[in-house]
């Protein structure tokens, strides 16, 4: 049974995708109501300057755009504050909308403590594609940020090992998922084949890349009974 909250933003799904040729800003979804999501309300209150906009997408997915220079501070707070505690970073990715529009960094987070999810976005202008790394907060962001660096060319300040992860290490044609990247690449097929065969295969398999089972990341446990949500569950 879909109530009002679950069906919010579904109009945009019905409308279908928007062509990247269309210029100007367009954000699908509906204007969000911060009172529906505790973390959004807290962000609005605590980081009022840094919250750019808040939208609700297909079926109640809350998306908050934040200022990139404040991203690390906000994400650290969302991870550590006991009322939010987003201890799982589900995905770090990016979207290029083309036509000179800014590249959007996307952070998809889930709080296993509060059973709540939140998506943060940062708009990075094409001439300043850099943002603070969040590897120090979530180790999982390591390879995800390398993927964004590889395919979109976003530089992550403070990343411990920022190098290409999918494309060959000596790939010289650019960043393939950018809208201005030609489908077949920038070099001719002959040149691509020559470069491919001249790769150093040994470099694919570095010992530190292959070593599995690093020590798990420690996230401070939450004491039972200290959360606001604990009382709510007790009442129910």
């Amino acid at each position, binding site marked *: 049974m879909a109530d009002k909250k679950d069906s919010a933003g579904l109009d945009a799904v019905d409308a279908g995708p928007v062509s990247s040729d269309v210029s100007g800003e367009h954000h699908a979804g509906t204007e969000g109501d911060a009172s529906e999501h505790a973390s959004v309300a807290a962000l609005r209150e605590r980081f009022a300057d840094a919250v750019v906009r808040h939208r609700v997408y297909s079926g109640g997915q809350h998306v908050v755009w934040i200022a990139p220079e404040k991203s690390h501070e906000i994400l650290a707070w969302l991870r550590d504050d006991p009322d939010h505690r987003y201890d799982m970073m589900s995905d770090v990715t990016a979207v290029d909308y083309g036509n000179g529009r800014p590249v959007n960094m996307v952070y998809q987070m889930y709080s296993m403590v509060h059973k709540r999810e939140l998506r943060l976005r940062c708009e990075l202008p094409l001439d300043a594609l850099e943002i603070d790394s969040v590897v120090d907060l979530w180790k999982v962001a390591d390879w995800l940020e390398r993927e964004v660096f590889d395919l979109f060319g976003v530089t992550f300040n403070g990343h411990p090992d920022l190098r290409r992860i999918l494309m*060959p290490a000596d790939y010289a044609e650019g960043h393939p998922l950018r809208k201005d990247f030609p489908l077949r690449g920038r070099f001719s*097929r002959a040149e691509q084949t020559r470069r491919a065969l001249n790769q150093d295969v040994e470099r694919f398999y570095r010992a530190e890349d292959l070593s599995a089972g690093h020590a798990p990341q420690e996230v401070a446990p939450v004491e039972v009974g200290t959360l606001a949500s604990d009382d709510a569950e007790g009442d129910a």
Partner: protein
Amino acid sequence: MGLKDILPGGGTSATTGALFGAGGPTFLTSKVDWIVNWGRRNSLWPMPFGTACCAIEMMASAASNFDLARFGMERMSFSPRQADVLICAGRVPYKLAPVLRRVWDQMPQPKWCISMGACASSGGVFDVYSMVQGIDTIIPVDVYIPGCPPRPEGLIYGLMMIQEKIRQESLSRHFEHRAEDPTLVARPLASDFEVAELSGPFGNSTQQEQLSSGEAV
């Protein structure tokens, strides 16, 4: 079934030159080519290089319903050094190209190669920045199997074509066409200019020196 039954003419005709004593054949003569090719084509060990959905069909071919062992492909050799025929099943990205080349180089002579499926043979639908446009730009290929993916019967037919090819090979001529660098053996008869003009922006061969935008390099 003894050797006598499978030799041409049942081992009794004059073509084999076999002599028979009272208790059966004591010795026989044959062509070295024939004996060697008979052994080779009936004990082909595949090196499976499966990268995509074609590999699922390749596994089905080896399983009990289709049973490649009937053709002497008794053992999938996961070491290239004990393999005779490389089966490249699936798409190969440029990053994997030197790996495929090295696996091929590690296989001992004599060796054969099967390109299984549309992606391995031509790049298939993946005419994009990251994909090898046919593994014959990396290594020499003996048999191309069309299909997306081919059914196990297709792979078996391809392997039987390899067997037929081996049957017609001769020890004295075997290495002639086995040059290692496909860019040397696979030169087209047409000139570079004609290749570029014909392939245009959609060309996908190693000889294509044009950018995808159509301008020459």
